[in-house]
């Protein structure tokens, strides 16, 4: 997996590239893949997509990424470095993949015997909030949790909500993750500023998202795979070509790594970095709230 890490610093850009950023954001808010739509409609259309794919979501993920998505999520969670007693918010976490992995990680850490240092922290209960705008995705998640036995001690809380206006209090979360979700929101900057709001001092923001590939030959292969193979698989397995067409188009419309990193910095985060996985097919952006 190729690693490309760039550190961006927080800057009050006096002459920010506001014109280009706002144009980009406006175009994100009114784009549904390569189609142009009204802002108000975008959320509904995305909602329809996920309502329809919810049942097969995990299977399709496995097929499209050849199982790699599991490794990407593992990497996300290890970068997060969870600890017992943590309050974590996983946004657009619908089917619970990231949340389950965080819980696994915390339980492993507990077994390693960090208890002595954490006597007071263990009284603070680990709470992972899974927030998703789409109730169908949440239902799938709750089912999976019940099957696998996660969250029986109340450490998992399923919340239906909008990433652009979260119902959580300021400075209440130790960590915030959004995996494969930020591409689908209408207003990226609102999501980022909400993330900044709910995080505590020292809290971390992590975003795992499909991103842009720039390696020459690999890019062509990836484009070919995206536009030819994925919608076909969608058609055959989920019976829904349109949704998967939207998926691959929305990846192309999302800002590239550097641009997204600067947007994160604009929202107030520091030490904004990103790491490319698989040559840029996926990127993990991270930032700290200071």
């Amino acid at each position, binding site marked *: 997996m190729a690693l490309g890490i760039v550190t961006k610093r*927080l*800057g009050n850009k*006096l002459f920010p590239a506001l014109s280009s950023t706002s144009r980009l954001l406006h175009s994100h808010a009114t784009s549904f893949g390569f189609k142009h739509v009204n802002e108000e409609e975008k959320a509904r259309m995305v909602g329809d997509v996920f309502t329809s794919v919810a049942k097969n979501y995990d299977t399709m993920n496995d097929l499209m990424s050849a199982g790699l998505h599991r490794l990407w999520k593992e990497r996300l969670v290890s970068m*997060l470095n969870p*600890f017992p007693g943590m309050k974590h918010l996983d946004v657009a976490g619908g089917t619970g993949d990231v949340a389950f992995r965080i819980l696994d990680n915390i339980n492993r850490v507990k077994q390693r015997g960090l208890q002595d*240092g954490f006597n007071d*922290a263990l009284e603070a209960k680990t709470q992972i909030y899974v927030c998703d705008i789409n109730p169908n995705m949440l239902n799938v998640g709750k089912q999976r949790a019940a099957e696998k036995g996660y969250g029986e001690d109340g450490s998992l809380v399923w919340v239906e909500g909008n990433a652009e206006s979260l119902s959580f209090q300021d400075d209440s979360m130790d960590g915030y993750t959004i995996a494969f979700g930020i591409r689908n929101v209408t207003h990226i900057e609102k999501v980022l500023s909400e993330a900044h709001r709910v995080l505590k001092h020292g809290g971390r923001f992590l975003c795992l998202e499909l991103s842009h590939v720039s390696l020459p030959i690999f890019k062509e292969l990836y484009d070919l795979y995206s536009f030819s193979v994925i919608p076909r698989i969608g058609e055959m397995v989920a019976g829904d070509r349109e949704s998967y067409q939207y998926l691959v188009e929305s990846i192309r419309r999302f800002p590239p790594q550097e641009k997204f990193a600067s947007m994160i910095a604009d929202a107030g985060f*520091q030490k904004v970095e990103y790491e490319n996985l698989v040559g840029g097919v996926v990127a993990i952006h991270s930032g700290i709230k*200071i």
Partner: protein
Amino acid sequence: MYRTAAKRLLCSARQFNGNAALRFRRHNALITYSRFSTTEINQPFSNPHSIHDAIPISTTEIENPTLYDSTSSSTSSSSTTDEDSHRFESPKSKTKYEDEHARLLSASLVHVMKLGWTETALMAGAKDVGLSPSIVGSLSRKEAALVEFYMDDCLQRLIDKIDTDGSLKNLTPSDCISKLIRFRLEIQAPYISTWPQAPSTQAQPVNVPTSFKQRAMLVDEIWHAAGDNASDLDWYAKRTVLGGIYSTTEIYMLTDGSADFRDTWAFLDARVKDAFDLKKTIQEAQYLAEAVSTGLGNTFEEFVGKVFRR
């Protein structure tokens, strides 16, 4: 390498540049400030306990969000000067994450004695300074960062001692070296129970470049204080030998149960003496070799001459 031509101030500044992510802290309690001749904006927040006009260090006040000037700007790269300009333009500046990291690391040192050089200590430190323990995840090479921070702190204290202690000049090199190594090891004596973790963390391949550099600086400082001005091959030999003495003494100290580590200091003196004796021995061996080769050379010439004259 580090000290041959430069003055001490430049040297210190370069150290900061090398440890870009870490910041020096002078003695845990003091909060220092750096003032630059250029601008001082919004000083109402400032509470300088001591001002060092020469050494560019800065850390933030724990209570107030203070204005501070960028660190290591005297030998900084262009990226940090960009930040400077950003900061000067905005009336209220924000605390930078590196300072938060520095605060975190120094707060964590307190917990090391109980919890070892581990993530747990870091998280406990984070709670102390009011940061979410998540921030530990953003430190690259977590425990190693803590150890490196501590090593830098110790080195700084050693440098202070060298600066302030005038009696060192009157000692012979071997005594001076003994004294300095002893001082340096005494600094880390409080952590002796958890100490084995620290060098072993530093020995991990990922951490070796930084730890090697820190060790090199330490050895360099000591030799320089002992009055060494060589800049030839001898330079490397001296530092390697001193590095060896330091490491072995440190390891000896780990298993030393005598009061005040008396046995360790005896061991140290013996090693230093050995090293200097070795040096004399090598010199003498060199002279001997030269003499023999000259003699042999003469004999050979005569022999060849006789052969060809025939």
